């Protein structure tokens, strides 16, 4: 059996398992005796399906030819087709790499009531979501793609609103639906515009269709598709749904939402930019690069201001989408200047970051889920000291935090390093002023990455370290084995993808060959030193494996010396310096808000912070009996846009209601007018 066949078999198996997991939930959900055990059974389908999907993606990446299957002509004249080319296969692997450990985690997590009152139905919906995502990544036909897209939106919505009794959850879900509709509207328009020029609804015909279009139409379709998919990906200023919707979902669903659901937007953007459009003028690359820089920087700035752990992570998703888009934008610019090889480097940087972000953000959300479950709050100000009660979770969260901060030798470092190399290489490609955009984007990427590190010092430090700030945090205990296993799996993946990056990068050859007709691995990775090397002109190399080994030995050597000495010198545990106060308590600790205060002040032009302090006193203002403190910042740009859109929508709905007067005569008149119109248009030859 060759790898194409194997990919096809595994893919069908995966879809079958997801479908079975979902369909079984429909009758089982009705059964009154259905319990969390049944939900766990259905969860098993998700796990098995993810493993099959991983195999399908891996085989398809290795296959020389993409696997393609077209259905017989259906009723409406559509020939649905499935296509498993290299780009689809890569996203399928990313999906599976995250979904498998997430389903392992879910075995433990759903026992804690994560799915609200209908665990069986939602376990089935998890399968439905994974199936829909697999279909989105592999659909070869516009209608099938859009159908899968809508199915994915519906499944995500019902999964994220598991706790729909809470107003916040309903609000998040509503925003998600609203903005998904807006994005889908733009996508429909863009795809139909492309279809009109391609003369077909099959993606096979779409390849390069963007170049056959006249300039204005091509630009319009590109912008519609970029911003349509951009809403899903959460680029600023179209991100408003993301920090509202991701935190309210059950944490393993948040992991999927941030890890892979928003990546459907990235998939769409990659498909459009590199497959549908084989050539673009430089402005397109600049648009993508600018969107990436803005999203990255503002995403991390707003993440820093959060003290809701899950909202903080959600804003970091926006930041990482920005980093991915920097890679894509750089690649587009390099392609339009005629450097496909450097473009391939930038594309690989973006795609590798897509996979890495799925892993470490999934890990962080799973960790947040364990933390929120143990401490009964999402507010970091009420956590602290959790490393004592839950040391394993703390370790895994620390790995995720280090990876997302781009620290060597983990996977986040590798993809950020590739992005820098690509951006630097871009400077030498042209004599136009646009080339200054590359290093400026690189410097802003440095700012973004450094702020991300600050943010995760805060997220990890305030949550896990020092003294507990609440009774719940004091009593927090470690989560169950299934949840730990899910997190350990992802943490291991972050380490392996970091250290083993030189061996992973060649797997992207298929994608770059398909999209840019070139590959970087031959020149890019030298096996002898296990180092990544940017392609010629040789611009640098990095070897995460060697760095990891050296770091380990450099830190172990003094550690061993210290352990040997420790027996001979005193080692005691003492109190922390408390300035002579009676005792240090948790209220002496720095808070999350305090930690980010200096950044709030420095970037006050962005945040426009407003604070109000009202002391209440009886005798003298120097002895306040109570102090009310209020602090707020201006929400990220786009919120007012969203509010406006929401108002407009409600206004239109109100007006539209007048048509539905409830009068039978009016309805008969509508039907009559419609009939006349249809006859007029239908009968006309």
């Amino acid at each position, binding site marked *: 059996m060759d790898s194409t066949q194997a990919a096809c078999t595994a893919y069908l198996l995966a879809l079958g398992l997801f479908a079975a997991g979902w369909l079984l939930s429909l009758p089982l959900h009705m059964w009154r005796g259905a319990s969390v055990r049944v939900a766990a059974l259905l969860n098993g389908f998700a796990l098995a399906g993810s493993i099959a999907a991983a195999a399908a993606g891996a085989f398809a990446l290795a296959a020389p030819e993409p696997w393609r299957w077209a259905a017989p002509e259906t009723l409406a004249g559509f020939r649905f087709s499935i296509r498993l080319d290299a780009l689809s296969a890569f996203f399928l692997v990313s999906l599976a790499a995250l979904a498998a450990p997430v389903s392992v985690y879910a075995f433990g997590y759903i026992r804690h009531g994560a799915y609200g009152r209908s665990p069986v139905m939602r376990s089935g919906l998890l399968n439905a979501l994974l199936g829909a995502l697999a279909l989105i990544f592999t659909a070869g036909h516009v209608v099938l793609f859009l159908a899968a897209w809508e199915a994915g939106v519906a499944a995500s919505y019902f999964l994220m609103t598991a706790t729909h009794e809470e107003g916040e959850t309903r609000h998040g879900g509503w925003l998600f639906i609203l903005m998904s509709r807006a994005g889908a509207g733009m996508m429909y328009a863009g795809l139909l515009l492309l279809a009109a020029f391609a003369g077909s609804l099959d993606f096979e015909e779409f390849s390069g269709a963007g170049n056959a279009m006249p300039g204005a139409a091509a630009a319009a379709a590109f912008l519609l598709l970029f911003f349509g998919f951009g809403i899903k990906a959460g680029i600023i200023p179209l991100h408003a749904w993301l920090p509202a919707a991701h935190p309210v979902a059950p944490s393993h669903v948040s992991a999927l939402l941030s890890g892979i659901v928003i990546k459907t937007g990235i998939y769409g953007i990659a498909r459009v930019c590199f497959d549908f459009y084989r050539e673009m003028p430089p402005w397109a690359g600049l648009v993508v690069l600018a969107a990436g820089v803005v999203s990255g920087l503002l995403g991390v700035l707003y993440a820093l201001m959060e003290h809701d752990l899950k909202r903080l992570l959600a804003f970091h998703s926006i930041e990482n989408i920005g980093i991915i888009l920097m890679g894509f934008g750089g690649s587009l610019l390099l392609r339009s200047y005629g450097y496909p090889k450097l473009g391939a480097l930038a594309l690989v940087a973006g795609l590798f970051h897509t996979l890495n972000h799925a892993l470490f953000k999934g890990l962080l959300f799973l960790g947040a889920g364990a933390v929120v479950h143990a401490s009964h709050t999402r507010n970091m100000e009420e956590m602290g*000291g959790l490393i004592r009660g839950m040391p394993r979770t703390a370790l895994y969260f620390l790995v995720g935090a*280090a990876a997302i*901060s*781009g*620290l*060597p030798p983990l996977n986040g470092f590798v993809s*950020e390093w590739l992005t820098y190399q690509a951006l*630097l290489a871009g400077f*030498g490609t042209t004599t136009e002023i646009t*080339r*200054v955009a590359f*290093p400026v984007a*690189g*410097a*802003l990427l*440095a*700012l973004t*990455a*450094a702020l991300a*590190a*600050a943010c995760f*010092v*805060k997220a*990890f*430090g305030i949550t*896990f*370290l*020092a*003294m507990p700030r609440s009774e719940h945090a004091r009593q927090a205990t470690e989560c169950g084995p299934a949840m730990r296993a899910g997190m350990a799996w992802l943490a291991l993946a972050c380490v392996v993808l970091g250290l083993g990056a030189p061996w992973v990068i060649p797997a992207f050859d298929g994608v770059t060959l398909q999209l840019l007709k070139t590959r970087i691995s031959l020149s890019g990775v030298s096996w002898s030193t296990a*180092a990544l090397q940017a392609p010629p002109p040789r*611009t*640098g*190399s990095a*070897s995460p494996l*060697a*760095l990891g080994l*050296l*770091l*380990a030995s*450099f*830190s172990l050597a*003094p550690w061993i010396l210290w352990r040997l000495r420790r027996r001979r*010198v005193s*080692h*005691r*545990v*003492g*109190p*922390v310096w408390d300035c002579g106060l009676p005792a*240090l308590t948790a209220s*002496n*600790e*720095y808070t999350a808000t*305090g*930690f*980010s*205060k200096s*950044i709030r*002040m*420095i970037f006050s032009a962005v945040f426009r912070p407003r604070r109000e302090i009202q002391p209440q006193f009886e005798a003298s203002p120097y002895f306040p009996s109570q102090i009310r403190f209020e602090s707020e910042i201006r929400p990220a740009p786009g919120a007012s846009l969203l509010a406006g859109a929401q108002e407009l929508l409600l206004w239109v709905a109100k007006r539209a209601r007048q048509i539905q007067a409830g009068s039978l005569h009016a309805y008969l008149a509508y039907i009559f007018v419609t009939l006349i119109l249809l006859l007029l248009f239908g009968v006309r030859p």
Partner: protein
Amino acid sequence: MILSAIAAVVQALLLLLASPLITGLIRTAKARLQNRRGPSPLQPYRDLHKLLRKGVVEPETASAVFTAAPFVVFAATLLAGLLIPTVAASAPLSQFGGVLTLVYLLALGRFFLALAALDTGSSFGGMGSSREMTIAALAEPALMMAVFTAALGAGSTDPGRMAQVAIFEGWRFLAPSQMLAFAALFIVLLAETGRIPVDNPATHLELTMIHEAMILEYSGPWLALIEWSAWIRQMVLLTLLANLFFPFTLASGPGVMELLAAGGLYLLKILVLAGAVVLVETTNAKMRLFRVPELLAVAFVLGALALISTFLFGVR
């Protein structure tokens, strides 16, 4: 292979042994300029010796992160030091990473030190941690801009290669891009090593400390490792500045005499730069914390101008 391993060992020893001396010399020079006698330049060695022999008082609120941090910081800083050329015109471990890796390794150390500072639960720790991460974040784009300017001139992010290209092209320090980048990197050096006007290394007044506030709870060998790492980091950054912009003294061959001469010149360069740091420290007052962003913005603008002048005037 063996040659670069030997070079790595020698360079590690150089960093470990010479970095306390440089710190000591800076302290002595500063004291003399302020009409004080000051400690002997060898005082840091004595401090190290004393601290390494002592026991440890571990804060009762701290966790394993607090214990691990000194070792991680030490390893990351030392490894970063092996990625730059010091005496010869190539870094011992250049195939394992270039200047980008160096920046990220320093970030790794900072990340763990900031976590350890939060781990004690003391407000000073939190204060130092917050300030350190803020200033580092603001210094990063300026640092990258300056490094990019040098890297773009050489077409490589390997600092050894950058130095070689600069030697090959001859004296080009007077090119506007190089001068501007040098100025930007010098400001970043002041910020990253915690020098006046950004941070005062001599202060023990809690409200103005940054680095010292983070390590307030450390004692004994752990403190020794952290102090040592800070000195190594200072030497690494001085070396980066010296060898990216004045690479001409670097030895190009493996001859012993040549290497010795280059080593002497290298220490001389570092000392001249350290002298500049001393002058800045004595003639300036420490800035208010919220003035520091303006200084770093100046560095960023200088870096950006350096880059744009590369574009306008070419590298030379």
